[in-house]
Protein backbone atom coordinates (compact mmCIF):
# COMPACT_ATOMS: atom_id res chain seq x y z
CA UNK A 1 0.00 0.00 0.00
CA UNK A 2 1.37 3.39 -0.96
CA UNK A 3 0.54 5.05 2.36
CA UNK A 4 2.39 2.43 4.37
CA UNK A 5 5.30 2.63 1.94
CA UNK A 6 5.39 6.38 2.31
CA UNK A 7 5.43 6.05 6.07
CA UNK A 8 8.12 3.40 6.02
CA UNK A 9 10.21 5.53 3.66
CA UNK A 10 10.36 8.26 6.25
CA UNK A 11 13.11 7.63 8.78
CA UNK A 12 11.27 9.48 11.54
CA UNK A 13 8.17 7.31 11.20
CA UNK A 14 10.33 4.19 11.09
CA UNK A 15 12.04 5.24 14.30
CA UNK A 16 8.70 6.05 15.93
CA UNK A 17 7.10 2.76 14.88
CA UNK A 18 10.17 0.88 16.08
CA UNK A 19 10.21 2.76 19.37
CA UNK A 20 6.54 2.07 20.03
CA UNK A 21 7.12 -1.63 19.29
CA UNK A 22 9.94 -1.67 21.81
CA UNK A 23 7.82 0.13 24.41
CA UNK A 24 5.09 -2.45 23.92
CA UNK A 25 7.29 -5.18 25.40
CA UNK A 26 9.50 -2.97 27.57
CA UNK A 27 6.39 -2.22 29.68
CA UNK A 28 5.61 -5.72 30.93
CA UNK A 29 9.25 -6.83 31.01
CA UNK A 30 10.17 -3.65 32.87
CA UNK A 31 7.57 -4.54 35.49
CA UNK A 32 9.31 -7.87 36.04
CA UNK A 33 12.67 -6.09 36.27
CA UNK A 34 11.23 -3.86 39.00
CA UNK A 35 9.35 -6.63 40.84
CA UNK A 36 12.29 -9.02 40.80
CA UNK A 37 14.90 -6.36 41.56
CA UNK A 38 16.78 -7.10 38.37
CA UNK A 39 17.67 -3.52 37.39
CA UNK A 40 21.39 -4.07 37.71
CA UNK A 41 21.04 -7.40 35.99
CA UNK A 42 19.35 -5.74 33.01
CA UNK A 43 22.12 -3.17 32.89
CA UNK A 44 24.74 -5.91 32.74
CA UNK A 45 22.98 -7.65 29.89
CA UNK A 46 22.55 -4.38 28.02
CA UNK A 47 26.22 -3.51 28.39
CA UNK A 48 27.21 -6.87 27.01
CA UNK A 49 25.30 -6.00 23.84
CA UNK A 50 28.31 -3.98 22.67
CA UNK A 51 30.47 -7.05 23.03
CA UNK A 52 27.85 -8.86 20.98
CA UNK A 53 28.17 -6.29 18.21
CA UNK A 54 31.95 -6.65 18.14
CA UNK A 55 31.65 -10.42 17.98
CA UNK A 56 29.06 -10.20 15.19
CA UNK A 57 31.57 -8.30 13.07
CA UNK A 58 34.32 -10.81 13.92
CA UNK A 59 32.34 -13.86 12.84
CA UNK A 60 30.11 -12.03 10.31
CA UNK A 61 26.62 -12.78 11.62
CA UNK A 62 23.73 -10.28 11.69
CA UNK A 63 24.09 -7.83 14.57
CA UNK A 64 20.79 -8.77 16.21
CA UNK A 65 21.73 -12.45 16.28
CA UNK A 66 25.17 -11.71 17.74
CA UNK A 67 23.68 -9.51 20.44
CA UNK A 68 21.00 -12.02 21.43
CA UNK A 69 23.50 -14.87 21.65
CA UNK A 70 25.97 -12.83 23.72
CA UNK A 71 23.23 -11.69 26.11
CA UNK A 72 21.94 -15.22 26.58
CA UNK A 73 25.41 -16.66 27.21
CA UNK A 74 26.14 -13.89 29.72
CA UNK A 75 22.78 -14.37 31.43
CA UNK A 76 23.39 -18.08 31.89
CA UNK A 77 26.93 -17.41 33.12
CA UNK A 78 25.54 -14.92 35.64
CA UNK A 79 23.01 -17.38 37.00
CA UNK A 80 25.65 -20.09 37.38
CA UNK A 81 28.23 -17.75 38.94
CA UNK A 82 25.76 -16.22 41.39
CA UNK A 83 24.97 -19.71 42.69
CA UNK A 84 28.52 -20.22 43.94
CA UNK A 85 28.14 -17.35 46.45
CA UNK A 86 31.86 -16.49 46.34
CA UNK A 87 31.07 -12.87 45.40
CA UNK A 88 27.99 -10.84 46.24
CA UNK A 89 25.67 -10.62 43.26
CA UNK A 90 25.97 -6.85 42.86
CA UNK A 91 29.79 -7.09 42.85
CA UNK A 92 29.62 -9.84 40.27
CA UNK A 93 27.21 -7.82 38.12
CA UNK A 94 29.41 -4.73 38.41
CA UNK A 95 32.44 -6.69 37.25
CA UNK A 96 30.69 -8.33 34.33
CA UNK A 97 28.74 -5.26 33.18
CA UNK A 98 31.75 -3.03 32.82
CA UNK A 99 34.10 -5.75 31.64
CA UNK A 100 31.67 -6.71 28.87
CA UNK A 101 31.38 -3.07 27.82
CA UNK A 102 35.17 -2.57 27.95
CA UNK A 103 35.95 -5.78 26.06
CA UNK A 104 33.40 -4.76 23.43
CA UNK A 105 35.00 -1.32 23.00
CA UNK A 106 38.54 -2.74 22.87
CA UNK A 107 37.55 -5.41 20.35
CA UNK A 108 35.87 -2.80 18.13
CA UNK A 109 39.00 -0.64 18.21
CA UNK A 110 41.00 -3.58 16.83
CA UNK A 111 38.83 -3.60 13.73
CA UNK A 112 39.79 -0.45 11.82
CA UNK A 113 37.99 -1.47 8.63
CA UNK A 114 34.71 -1.82 10.49
CA UNK A 115 33.08 1.55 10.66
CA UNK A 116 30.61 1.69 13.50
CA UNK A 117 28.83 4.70 14.87
CA UNK A 118 29.81 4.24 18.50
CA UNK A 119 27.74 7.15 19.77
CA UNK A 120 24.72 5.72 17.97
CA UNK A 121 25.23 2.33 19.60
CA UNK A 122 25.74 3.76 23.06
CA UNK A 123 23.00 6.41 23.01
CA UNK A 124 20.64 5.45 20.21
CA UNK A 125 20.16 6.92 16.77
CA UNK A 126 17.03 8.29 15.16
CA UNK A 127 18.40 7.61 11.69
CA UNK A 128 19.50 4.03 12.20
CA UNK A 129 16.12 2.27 12.05
CA UNK A 130 15.83 0.20 8.87
CA UNK A 131 12.86 -1.75 7.55
CA UNK A 132 14.62 -4.94 8.59
CA UNK A 133 14.91 -3.60 12.12
CA UNK A 134 11.17 -3.00 12.18
CA UNK A 135 10.61 -6.62 11.22
CA UNK A 136 12.89 -7.71 14.04
CA UNK A 137 11.15 -5.47 16.54
CA UNK A 138 7.59 -6.51 15.69
CA UNK A 139 8.53 -10.17 15.28
CA UNK A 140 10.29 -10.11 18.64
CA UNK A 141 7.46 -8.17 20.28
CA UNK A 142 4.89 -10.65 19.02
CA UNK A 143 6.90 -13.58 20.34
CA UNK A 144 7.44 -11.92 23.72
CA UNK A 145 3.79 -10.90 24.14
CA UNK A 146 2.67 -14.40 23.24
CA UNK A 147 5.03 -15.93 25.80
CA UNK A 148 3.92 -13.43 28.44
CA UNK A 149 0.24 -14.21 27.92
CA UNK A 150 0.78 -17.97 28.06
CA UNK A 151 3.15 -17.91 31.04
CA UNK A 152 1.60 -14.97 32.90
CA UNK A 153 0.20 -16.79 35.94
CA UNK A 154 3.35 -18.88 36.42
CA UNK A 155 5.68 -15.92 35.96
CA UNK A 156 3.70 -13.83 38.42
CA UNK A 157 3.49 -16.62 40.98
CA UNK A 158 7.21 -17.34 40.83
CA UNK A 159 7.87 -13.62 41.24
CA UNK A 160 5.62 -13.36 44.31
CA UNK A 161 6.97 -16.40 46.14
CA UNK A 162 9.48 -18.64 44.44
CA UNK A 163 9.26 -21.56 46.85
CA UNK A 164 5.48 -21.56 46.95
CA UNK A 165 5.51 -21.58 43.16
CA UNK A 166 7.90 -24.53 43.09
CA UNK A 167 5.76 -26.50 45.52
CA UNK A 168 2.76 -25.84 43.29
CA UNK A 169 4.63 -27.41 40.40
CA UNK A 170 5.66 -24.28 38.51
CA UNK A 171 9.01 -24.78 36.71
CA UNK A 172 10.67 -21.76 38.31
CA UNK A 173 14.16 -22.32 36.89
CA UNK A 174 12.93 -22.75 33.35
CA UNK A 175 10.79 -19.63 33.65
CA UNK A 176 13.82 -17.64 34.77
CA UNK A 177 15.62 -18.78 31.65
CA UNK A 178 12.66 -17.78 29.46
CA UNK A 179 12.57 -14.38 31.13
CA UNK A 180 16.27 -13.91 30.37
CA UNK A 181 15.77 -14.88 26.76
CA UNK A 182 13.04 -12.26 26.55
CA UNK A 183 15.34 -9.65 28.10
CA UNK A 184 18.07 -10.51 25.60
CA UNK A 185 15.64 -10.19 22.73
CA UNK A 186 14.33 -6.84 23.91
CA UNK A 187 17.85 -5.53 24.44
CA UNK A 188 18.86 -6.55 20.94
CA UNK A 189 15.93 -4.70 19.39
CA UNK A 190 15.87 -1.70 21.73
CA UNK A 191 19.56 -0.97 21.21
CA UNK A 192 18.94 0.90 17.95
CA UNK A 193 16.49 3.31 19.54
CA UNK A 194 17.87 4.16 22.96
CA UNK A 195 21.40 2.73 22.87
CA UNK A 196 22.97 0.12 25.14
CA UNK A 197 23.65 2.53 27.99
CA UNK A 198 20.03 3.60 28.36
CA UNK A 199 18.00 0.46 27.71
CA UNK A 200 17.51 -0.24 31.41
CA UNK A 201 15.98 3.21 31.81
CA UNK A 202 13.34 2.41 29.19
CA UNK A 203 12.54 -0.78 31.12
CA UNK A 204 12.47 0.67 34.62
CA UNK A 205 11.20 4.24 34.47
CA UNK A 206 7.79 3.58 32.84
CA UNK A 207 7.23 0.59 35.16
CA UNK A 208 8.16 2.59 38.25
CA UNK A 209 5.90 5.44 37.10
CA UNK A 210 3.05 2.97 36.62
CA UNK A 211 3.45 1.59 40.14
CA UNK A 212 2.17 4.84 41.58
CA UNK A 213 -1.26 4.44 39.96
CA UNK A 214 -1.57 0.67 39.55
CA UNK A 215 -4.24 -1.40 41.26
CA UNK A 216 -3.10 -4.84 40.07
CA UNK A 217 -0.08 -6.40 38.35
CA UNK A 218 -1.90 -6.37 35.00
CA UNK A 219 -2.97 -2.78 35.44
CA UNK A 220 0.65 -1.87 36.16
CA UNK A 221 1.91 -3.48 32.95
CA UNK A 222 -0.72 -1.69 30.86
CA UNK A 223 0.16 1.65 32.43
CA UNK A 224 3.87 0.92 31.91
CA UNK A 225 3.24 0.34 28.20
CA UNK A 226 1.31 3.59 28.04
CA UNK A 227 4.07 5.57 29.77
CA UNK A 228 6.58 3.86 27.46
CA UNK A 229 4.60 5.11 24.45
CA UNK A 230 4.61 8.63 25.85
CA UNK A 231 8.38 8.46 26.46
CA UNK A 232 9.17 7.17 22.97
CA UNK A 233 6.74 9.50 21.19
CA UNK A 234 7.79 12.55 23.16
CA UNK A 235 11.49 11.73 23.10
CA UNK A 236 11.74 11.08 19.38
CA UNK A 237 9.75 14.22 18.59
CA UNK A 238 12.14 16.17 20.81
CA UNK A 239 15.09 14.57 19.06
CA UNK A 240 13.63 15.42 15.63
CA UNK A 241 12.90 19.07 16.38
CA UNK A 242 15.86 19.96 18.58
CA UNK A 243 18.40 17.57 17.03
CA UNK A 244 19.13 15.99 20.42
CA UNK A 245 20.39 12.38 20.65
CA UNK A 246 17.46 9.94 20.46
CA UNK A 247 18.09 7.72 23.50
CA UNK A 248 18.72 10.49 26.03
CA UNK A 249 15.67 12.39 24.72
CA UNK A 250 13.46 9.35 25.30
CA UNK A 251 14.84 8.86 28.80
CA UNK A 252 14.47 12.54 29.68
CA UNK A 253 10.82 12.39 28.59
CA UNK A 254 10.23 9.21 30.62
CA UNK A 255 11.83 10.85 33.64
CA UNK A 256 9.69 13.98 33.28
CA UNK A 257 6.54 11.85 33.27
CA UNK A 258 7.86 9.99 36.32
CA UNK A 259 8.36 13.26 38.21
CA UNK A 260 4.96 14.51 37.15
CA UNK A 261 3.13 11.37 38.33
CA UNK A 262 5.02 11.08 41.60
CA UNK A 263 4.63 14.78 42.27
CA UNK A 264 1.00 15.08 41.27
CA UNK A 265 -0.86 11.80 41.72
CA UNK A 266 -2.04 10.41 44.99
CA UNK A 267 -0.67 6.98 45.77
CA UNK A 268 -3.08 4.10 45.25
CA UNK A 269 -4.10 1.86 48.12
CA UNK A 270 -2.91 -1.44 46.66
Amino acid at each position, binding site marked *: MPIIDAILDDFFWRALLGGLGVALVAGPLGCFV*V*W*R*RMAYFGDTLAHSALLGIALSFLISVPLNVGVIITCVVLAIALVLLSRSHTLATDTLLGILAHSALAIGLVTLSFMPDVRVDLTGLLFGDLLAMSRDDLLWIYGGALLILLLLVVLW*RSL*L*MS*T*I*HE*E*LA*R*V*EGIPVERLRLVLMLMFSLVIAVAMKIVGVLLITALLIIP*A*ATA*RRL*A*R*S*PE*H*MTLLAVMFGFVAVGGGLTLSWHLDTPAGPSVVVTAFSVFLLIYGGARQ*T*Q*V
Partner: protein
Amino acid sequence: MTEPLVTLERVTIAFDDRPVVDRVDLKVHRGDIITIIGPNGAGKTTLIKAVLGIQRVTEGSVKLARNLTVGYVPQHLILESTLPLTVRRFMALSGRPGSECQAALEKTGVGHLVDASIHHLSGGEKQRLLLARALARKPDLLVLDEPAQGVDINGQAALYDLIRQLRDQLHCGVIMISHDLHLVMAATDKVICLNQHICCSGYPADISHDPAFIETFGQPVAESLAVYHHHHNHRHDLHGDVVSGAVTDDNHQECDHAHH
Protein backbone atom coordinates in the same frame (compact mmCIF):
# COMPACT_ATOMS: atom_id res chain seq x y z
CA MET B 1 -5.94 -44.90 54.76
CA THR B 2 -3.13 -47.21 55.75
CA GLU B 3 -0.78 -46.06 53.05
CA PRO B 4 1.35 -43.22 54.35
CA LEU B 5 1.18 -39.85 52.55
CA VAL B 6 4.91 -39.39 52.90
CA THR B 7 7.63 -41.88 53.67
CA LEU B 8 11.17 -40.70 54.35
CA GLU B 9 13.80 -43.41 54.50
CA ARG B 10 17.22 -42.66 55.89
CA VAL B 11 17.15 -39.20 54.37
CA THR B 12 20.50 -37.44 54.53
CA ILE B 13 21.06 -33.93 53.18
CA ALA B 14 24.60 -32.59 53.18
CA PHE B 15 25.89 -29.14 52.27
CA ASP B 16 29.61 -29.24 51.44
CA ASP B 17 29.92 -32.69 53.02
CA ARG B 18 28.46 -31.39 56.28
CA PRO B 19 25.26 -33.28 56.99
CA VAL B 20 22.43 -30.92 57.89
CA VAL B 21 19.89 -33.71 58.01
CA ASP B 22 21.24 -37.07 59.07
CA ARG B 23 19.48 -40.38 58.32
CA VAL B 24 15.95 -39.35 59.12
CA ASP B 25 13.09 -41.84 58.90
CA LEU B 26 9.59 -40.44 58.97
CA LYS B 27 6.08 -41.47 57.98
CA VAL B 28 3.08 -39.17 57.78
CA HIS B 29 -0.44 -40.59 57.56
CA ARG B 30 -3.76 -38.90 56.97
CA GLY B 31 -4.98 -37.31 60.17
CA ASP B 32 -1.50 -37.03 61.72
CA ILE B 33 -0.21 -33.76 63.09
CA ILE B 34 3.52 -34.07 63.34
CA THR B 35 5.52 -31.21 64.75
CA ILE B 36 9.23 -30.86 64.23
CA ILE B 37 11.03 -29.01 66.98
CA GLY B 38 14.72 -28.43 67.46
CA PRO B 39 17.37 -25.78 67.98
CA ASN B 40 18.39 -23.29 65.28
CA GLY B 41 20.38 -24.91 62.50
CA ALA B 42 18.97 -28.32 63.30
CA GLY B 43 17.87 -28.85 59.71
CA LYS B 44 14.13 -28.47 60.29
CA THR B 45 13.43 -26.28 57.28
CA THR B 46 15.81 -28.31 55.11
CA LEU B 47 13.95 -31.47 56.06
CA ILE B 48 10.51 -30.16 55.16
CA LYS B 49 11.88 -28.75 51.92
CA ALA B 50 12.92 -32.30 51.09
CA VAL B 51 9.34 -33.40 51.79
CA LEU B 52 8.09 -30.62 49.52
CA GLY B 53 10.43 -31.75 46.77
CA ILE B 54 12.30 -28.45 46.58
CA GLN B 55 15.47 -29.67 48.31
CA ARG B 56 17.57 -32.38 46.74
CA VAL B 57 18.33 -35.31 49.01
CA THR B 58 21.96 -36.47 49.24
CA GLU B 59 21.08 -39.99 50.34
CA GLY B 60 17.97 -41.94 51.20
CA SER B 61 14.56 -41.56 49.63
CA VAL B 62 11.44 -39.41 49.85
CA LYS B 63 8.32 -41.21 48.69
CA LEU B 64 5.03 -39.40 48.25
CA ALA B 65 1.65 -41.06 47.83
CA ARG B 66 0.36 -40.94 44.27
CA ASN B 67 -1.56 -37.80 43.22
CA LEU B 68 -0.69 -36.14 46.48
CA THR B 69 -1.68 -32.48 46.68
CA VAL B 70 0.54 -30.55 49.02
CA GLY B 71 -0.43 -27.26 50.64
CA TYR B 72 2.60 -25.30 51.75
CA VAL B 73 2.56 -22.45 54.23
CA PRO B 74 5.97 -20.78 54.04
CA GLN B 75 7.56 -18.93 56.93
CA HIS B 76 6.97 -15.48 55.46
CA LEU B 77 5.22 -13.73 52.67
CA ILE B 78 7.55 -10.87 51.86
CA LEU B 79 6.07 -9.05 48.94
CA GLU B 80 8.10 -6.58 46.93
CA SER B 81 6.50 -3.18 47.59
CA THR B 82 6.51 -2.41 43.87
CA LEU B 83 4.08 -5.25 43.17
CA PRO B 84 0.45 -4.17 43.62
CA LEU B 85 -1.49 -7.19 44.83
CA THR B 86 -4.79 -7.68 46.61
CA VAL B 87 -5.76 -10.69 48.68
CA ARG B 88 -8.31 -11.64 46.01
CA ARG B 89 -5.72 -11.60 43.20
CA PHE B 90 -3.22 -13.58 45.27
CA MET B 91 -5.84 -16.23 45.98
CA ALA B 92 -6.91 -16.32 42.33
CA LEU B 93 -3.31 -17.14 41.35
CA SER B 94 -3.90 -20.56 42.92
CA GLY B 95 -5.99 -21.27 39.84
CA ARG B 96 -9.08 -22.18 41.89
CA PRO B 97 -12.49 -20.58 41.30
CA GLY B 98 -13.37 -17.46 43.26
CA SER B 99 -16.01 -19.13 45.43
CA GLU B 100 -13.51 -21.73 46.68
CA CYS B 101 -10.93 -19.04 47.36
CA GLN B 102 -13.48 -17.05 49.35
CA ALA B 103 -14.51 -20.16 51.30
CA ALA B 104 -10.85 -20.84 52.18
CA LEU B 105 -10.43 -17.25 53.37
CA GLU B 106 -13.56 -17.55 55.53
CA LYS B 107 -12.23 -20.77 57.06
CA THR B 108 -9.06 -19.10 58.23
CA GLY B 109 -10.94 -16.03 59.41
CA VAL B 110 -9.72 -13.45 56.89
CA GLY B 111 -12.69 -13.43 54.53
CA HIS B 112 -13.36 -9.76 55.25
CA LEU B 113 -9.91 -8.82 53.92
CA VAL B 114 -10.50 -10.04 50.38
CA ASP B 115 -10.18 -6.59 48.82
CA ALA B 116 -7.29 -5.44 51.00
CA SER B 117 -3.79 -4.93 49.67
CA ILE B 118 -1.38 -7.59 50.89
CA HIS B 119 1.03 -4.79 51.77
CA HIS B 120 -1.37 -3.62 54.49
CA LEU B 121 -1.88 -6.95 56.26
CA SER B 122 -0.45 -7.66 59.71
CA GLY B 123 1.84 -10.60 60.38
CA GLY B 124 -1.00 -12.74 61.69
CA GLU B 125 -3.28 -11.87 58.81
CA LYS B 126 -0.55 -12.78 56.34
CA GLN B 127 -0.09 -16.18 58.00
CA ARG B 128 -3.85 -16.80 57.80
CA LEU B 129 -3.83 -15.72 54.17
CA LEU B 130 -1.00 -18.16 53.39
CA LEU B 131 -2.95 -20.87 55.19
CA ALA B 132 -6.05 -20.05 53.13
CA ARG B 133 -3.93 -20.18 49.95
CA ALA B 134 -2.77 -23.67 50.92
CA LEU B 135 -6.35 -24.75 51.77
CA ALA B 136 -7.72 -23.56 48.45
CA ARG B 137 -5.69 -26.32 46.83
CA LYS B 138 -7.59 -28.93 48.91
CA PRO B 139 -4.39 -30.48 50.18
CA ASP B 140 -3.87 -34.07 51.28
CA LEU B 141 -0.83 -32.91 53.14
CA LEU B 142 -0.35 -29.55 54.80
CA VAL B 143 3.24 -28.44 55.42
CA LEU B 144 3.80 -25.41 57.63
CA ASP B 145 7.09 -23.69 58.40
CA GLU B 146 6.72 -21.87 61.72
CA PRO B 147 3.13 -20.84 61.06
CA ALA B 148 2.83 -18.70 64.19
CA GLN B 149 5.80 -16.46 63.51
CA GLY B 150 4.97 -12.81 63.97
CA VAL B 151 1.66 -13.69 65.62
CA ASP B 152 0.91 -12.53 69.16
CA ILE B 153 0.49 -15.09 71.93
CA ASN B 154 -3.32 -15.31 71.88
CA GLY B 155 -3.26 -15.46 68.13
CA GLN B 156 -0.73 -18.30 68.28
CA ALA B 157 -2.99 -20.53 70.36
CA ALA B 158 -5.91 -19.73 68.06
CA LEU B 159 -3.80 -20.49 65.00
CA TYR B 160 -2.74 -23.92 66.29
CA ASP B 161 -6.36 -24.61 67.18
CA LEU B 162 -7.35 -23.68 63.65
CA ILE B 163 -4.73 -26.00 62.17
CA ARG B 164 -6.14 -28.84 64.24
CA GLN B 165 -9.70 -28.05 63.14
CA LEU B 166 -8.61 -27.98 59.52
CA ARG B 167 -6.94 -31.33 59.91
CA ASP B 168 -10.26 -32.70 61.20
CA GLN B 169 -12.30 -31.11 58.39
CA LEU B 170 -10.00 -31.99 55.50
CA HIS B 171 -8.71 -35.18 57.03
CA CYS B 172 -5.26 -34.32 55.75
CA GLY B 173 -1.85 -34.98 57.22
CA VAL B 174 0.03 -32.08 58.80
CA ILE B 175 3.74 -31.53 59.22
CA MET B 176 4.85 -28.34 60.88
CA ILE B 177 7.90 -26.71 62.32
CA SER B 178 7.45 -24.79 65.51
CA HIS B 179 9.36 -23.04 68.24
CA ASP B 180 6.37 -22.57 70.52
CA LEU B 181 7.09 -25.58 72.67
CA HIS B 182 4.25 -25.16 75.14
CA LEU B 183 1.61 -24.66 72.46
CA VAL B 184 3.00 -27.46 70.35
CA MET B 185 2.93 -29.87 73.23
CA ALA B 186 -0.78 -29.22 73.63
CA ALA B 187 -1.78 -29.22 69.99
CA THR B 188 0.19 -32.04 68.43
CA ASP B 189 -0.13 -35.78 68.05
CA LYS B 190 3.51 -36.49 67.62
CA VAL B 191 6.63 -34.48 68.22
CA ILE B 192 9.92 -35.02 66.47
CA CYS B 193 12.91 -33.45 68.08
CA LEU B 194 15.44 -32.85 65.34
CA ASN B 195 19.05 -31.99 65.77
CA GLN B 196 20.45 -33.10 62.42
CA HIS B 197 19.26 -36.60 63.32
CA ILE B 198 16.01 -37.39 65.09
CA CYS B 199 17.17 -37.31 68.68
CA CYS B 200 13.82 -38.35 70.02
CA SER B 201 10.25 -38.61 68.88
CA GLY B 202 6.96 -39.56 70.40
CA TYR B 203 3.85 -38.28 72.05
CA PRO B 204 4.08 -34.91 73.72
CA ALA B 205 3.62 -36.18 77.25
CA ASP B 206 6.45 -38.69 76.92
CA ILE B 207 8.95 -36.65 75.08
CA SER B 208 9.62 -34.11 77.77
CA HIS B 209 10.99 -36.90 79.95
CA ASP B 210 13.28 -38.21 77.26
CA PRO B 211 16.96 -37.79 78.17
CA ALA B 212 17.77 -36.78 74.61
CA PHE B 213 15.12 -34.06 74.75
CA ILE B 214 16.46 -32.79 78.06
CA GLU B 215 19.96 -32.75 76.62
CA THR B 216 18.84 -30.74 73.60
CA PHE B 217 16.61 -28.20 75.26
CA GLY B 218 18.07 -28.18 78.78
CA GLN B 219 16.65 -29.25 82.11
CA PRO B 220 14.57 -26.09 82.80
CA VAL B 221 12.64 -26.29 79.54
CA ALA B 222 12.00 -30.00 79.92
CA GLU B 223 10.85 -29.53 83.50
CA SER B 224 8.53 -26.69 82.65
CA LEU B 225 6.92 -28.83 79.98
CA ALA B 226 6.69 -31.84 82.27
CA VAL B 227 4.99 -29.69 84.90
CA TYR B 228 2.64 -28.33 82.30
CA HIS B 229 1.54 -31.81 81.41
CA HIS B 230 1.25 -33.00 84.99
CA HIS B 231 -1.21 -30.38 85.99
CA HIS B 232 -3.39 -30.10 82.97
CA ASN B 233 -5.90 -32.68 81.99
CA HIS B 234 -8.17 -29.97 80.61
CA ARG B 235 -7.76 -26.88 78.50
CA HIS B 236 -8.66 -23.27 79.04
CA ASP B 237 -10.25 -20.93 76.58
CA LEU B 238 -9.11 -17.33 76.28
CA HIS B 239 -11.14 -16.27 79.33
CA GLY B 240 -9.57 -18.91 81.54
CA ASP B 241 -12.67 -21.10 81.67
CA VAL B 242 -12.13 -24.81 81.51
CA VAL B 243 -13.26 -26.23 78.21
CA SER B 244 -14.02 -29.87 77.56
CA GLY B 245 -11.61 -32.09 75.72
CA ALA B 246 -8.53 -33.66 77.21
CA VAL B 247 -5.05 -32.73 76.16
CA THR B 248 -3.34 -35.14 73.85
CA ASP B 249 -2.24 -38.18 75.75
CA ASP B 250 -0.81 -41.59 75.12
CA ASN B 251 -4.16 -43.11 74.23
CA HIS B 252 -4.44 -40.68 71.38
CA GLN B 253 -2.38 -42.91 69.17
CA GLU B 254 -5.26 -45.37 68.88
CA CYS B 255 -7.77 -42.66 68.10
CA ASP B 256 -8.92 -42.94 64.53
CA HIS B 257 -10.73 -39.61 64.26
CA ALA B 258 -14.17 -40.91 63.37
CA HIS B 259 -15.51 -37.62 62.20
CA HIS B 260 -16.48 -37.56 58.59
